[in-house]
């Protein structure tokens, strides 16, 4: 595939921009009022965010979601005595609207119970990939209509949080397979679940090993290095990249610690405070996902992953049946462009719109 990294520096010039003459303004004109106009409009329209949590059962996914958004998104599932393990992977979505200081956010959380729970977990990522691609397909269909809606409803998955069980050793083959396939289609944020079973040193060692594993297999998790635009972004994102994967603990019960009411897990040997940086890295995850990079997640999904999907879709020379059966991006069928190999580049070529530096990792 030809490398499509067109990298004009995003801040100054655009791909087709005309020759511009810089002009000095001799007085106040009021152009910056456009920022307020933007804000007002955005707040009126509301925001959307779709997040998917993937991991084996029992890793605390639902609890984590509840903790992240400080509300009862899901009923925390307990291993029901009479509930049989689902034979197939199911995807469950809930949508809520949450509001804070006048900002409305329509949040959709997709859960994947049954992932990695079977004895034979081969191709258990297919339904997930199918779902993600299907959201892209919906959006594409809406976009190429002749009479389009003013605001196309965005159901594309903006972020996928992958829960790594705290074995303390390395990434399991299932994890590696899944991450390889998914990191080309969606922004993946791996986290170490139930990190309260690891000591701090074990945590650090585990984290390093996971990072090495990711590098060896060419898995680019969010924040991707190739989308860093300028030096500030680079610095900020490097700090984050050092701490990926975050070791998190989820809790939705409150306890009293030192007179304060905190979210935490109470154990016989102490209370693990969720919001305490010394105990776990939940605040980092929350800040990344919500407070600082939410818009960025959406942008990358829209500008990169969706565009890749669109190119892939529009480049097909033969007519493909609609439906989820064909969106298998695994490196087997001949119709799908994908090579094999752990270091290879599975999936469609990436349109690196803003990459300024060609890092040696394939991006």
């Amino acid at each position: 595939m030809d490398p499509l990294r067109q990298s004009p520096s995003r801040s100054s010039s655009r791909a087709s921009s005309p020759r511009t003459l810089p002009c000095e303004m001799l007085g106040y004109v009021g152009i910056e009022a456009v920022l307020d106009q933007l804000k007002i409009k955005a707040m009126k329209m509301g925001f959307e965010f779709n997040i998917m949590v993937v991991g084996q059962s029992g890793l605390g996914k639902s609890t984590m979601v509840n903790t992240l958004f400080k509300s009862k998104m899901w009923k925390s599932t307990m291993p029901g005595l009479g509930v049989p393990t689902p034979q197939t992977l199911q995807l469950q979505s809930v949508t809520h609207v949450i509001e804070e200081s006048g900002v409305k956010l329509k949040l959709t959380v997709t859960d994947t119970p049954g992932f990695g729970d079977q004895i034979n977990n081969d191709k258990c990522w297919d339904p997930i990939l199918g779902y993600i691609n299907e959201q892209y397909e919906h959006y594409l269909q809406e976009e190429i209509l002749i009479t389009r809606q003013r605001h196309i409803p965005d159901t594309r998955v903006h972020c996928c949080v992958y829960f790594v069980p705290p074995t303390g050793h390395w990434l399991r083959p299932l994890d590696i397979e899944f991450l390889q396939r998914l990191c080309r289609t969606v922004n993946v944020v791996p986290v170490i679940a139930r990190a309260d079973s690891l000591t701090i040193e074990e945590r650090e060692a585990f984290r390093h090993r996971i990072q090495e594993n990711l590098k060896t297999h060419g898995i680019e998790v969010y924040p991707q290095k190739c989308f860093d635009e300028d030096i500030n972004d680079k610095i900020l994102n490097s700090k984050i990249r050092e701490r990926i994967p975050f070791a998190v603990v989820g809790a939705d019960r409150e306890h009293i610690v030192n007179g304060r009411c905190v979210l935490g897990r109470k154990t016989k040997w102490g209370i693990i405070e969720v919001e305490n940086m010394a105990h776990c890295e939940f605040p980092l995850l929350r800040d990344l996902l919500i407070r600082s990079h939410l818009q960025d997640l959406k942008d990358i999904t829209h500008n990169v992953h969706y565009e890749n999907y669109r190119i892939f879709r529009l480049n097909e020379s033969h007519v493909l049946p609609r439906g989820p059966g064909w969106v298998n991006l695994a490196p087997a069928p001949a119709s799908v462009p994908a090579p094999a190999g752990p270091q290879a580049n599975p999936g469609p070529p990436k349109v690196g719109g803003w990459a300024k530096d060609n890092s040696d990792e394939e991006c």
Partner: protein
Amino acid sequence: MEAEANSGSPEDSWAFIQRPGEGCRTVPLAGHVGFDSLPDQLVNQSISQGFCFNILCVGETGLGKSTLMDTLFNTKFEGEPATHTQPGVQLQSNTYDLQESNVGLKLTIVSTVGFGDQINKEDSYRPIVEFIDAQFEAYLQEELKIRRLLHNYHDSRIHACLYFIAPTGHSLKSLDLVTMKKLDSKVNVIPIIAKSDAISKSELTKFKIKITSELVSNGVQIYQFPMDDEAVAEVNGTMNAHLPFAVIGSTEELKIGNKMVKVRQYPWGTVQVENEAHCDFVKLREMLIRVNMEDLREQTHSRHYELYRRCKLEEMGFKDTDPDSKPFSLQETYEAKRNEFLGELQKKEEEMRQMFVQRVKEKEAELKEAEKELHEKFDRLKKLHQDEKKKLEDKKKSLDDEVNAFKQRKTAAELLQSQGSQAGGSQTLKRDKEKKNFYCFTVNSAVCCMLHETQGPAFFNLVFSSCTKSKGEDCHCRRVRVPYCLKSETNQFPLPPKCVRIHTHTHTHTHTTQVFTVSLCPGKTPSPDLRGILNGSVLC
């Protein structure tokens, strides 16, 4: 809010997506989550991307379009005023980079040049409409591309069109009506009354009422400031009542009070541009830039551009009849376009090849022609040369004949002479000269010295004083190079085997020299009895 579309045929057994109900619950938050920073995140991302805004100024020449732009943006844009002699309407577009605190704006100002200057103005609106359509087309093309860079694309679609109305005070001109009618579905039209310091206040109100009623009666939809957002609805509402704005543009400044204001100075008073009582410039600036810039852009994108896109796609033959057909027909179009393109490419290639072959042939023919010509020339020259040679040979032959004849005559004459000298006739030198005898002579020492001094072969002319013939007159004179060899005091010159007359320059030396005219015959050496040492006298 909305029920999602179906997610695939229900018989897929491995993926099962559940969505609870139609409505979404609003869930109360138990604490501060932190997504209220979302608008700020959005704004930051927009800042880094930069904004762009495109204004189109339509109006007759001389209505103050450039000045108004300068005044609006408080700067001096480059450009010179247009003449009134343009043959047609043209659009001139300039892009400028403005920066205010941390907001960067790429401002494009498009101005009509020559609008309303022609005698026949029927087609004046056409270039404008074509220009606007071209911008939409460019955006549509970019959007339809397979590999597209929409987030990096410089949006050149016109966001606002300021229509300058001449301040006649009566009503709209028909040109204005026609143009605005054509433009109102394509772009946000904001009519403004230009140079409004030419109208008095009372006339202005009547003028405005007349204009609005004419626009309404002709069904022209001008841009109304949006009133759906409470924050700005009130302001926009009042402004809507003041349309069209009566503006004055000026970049001259004058100190009034204690600050510099933009003014126009007249003998009867000073018009302040930013004074609301004088004109509506401030209102225009508020509305255009400070309050509604974003709305203008959004209207352009979601209303005008979508309309254009819909019309264009329907023209290309697409229909939205059922959702299944969409990607396929686009697919087919892509396929068809690709094939068409390839076909064209091939055709062009063929054409080029043909042309190339033809050219080569022509060149070859030309070269062959040239070659032939050269050959001919060569033959001609050769023939010429041969002719010349032949002629020369003939001449030589005739000369030889002449020489032979002469020799014969000479021998005969000598015979006669020897007979005649016995008879003792004194022959004048003249006659001797005419007999053409051989002479051997010495040159005196002075001349020898001269000869010595010359380098190389001496150019020796011997003239005998008894020659009364002036130079050149009937004596077959030829200057000859006489190779001399100085053997002894008495020099003997080997006589060149030619008939020559030799002149000396006697004036260069004082010694007298016998000066002879010597005629020598070609090809014969002097016979011993003719040879002698003489000081220039005739021997025989």
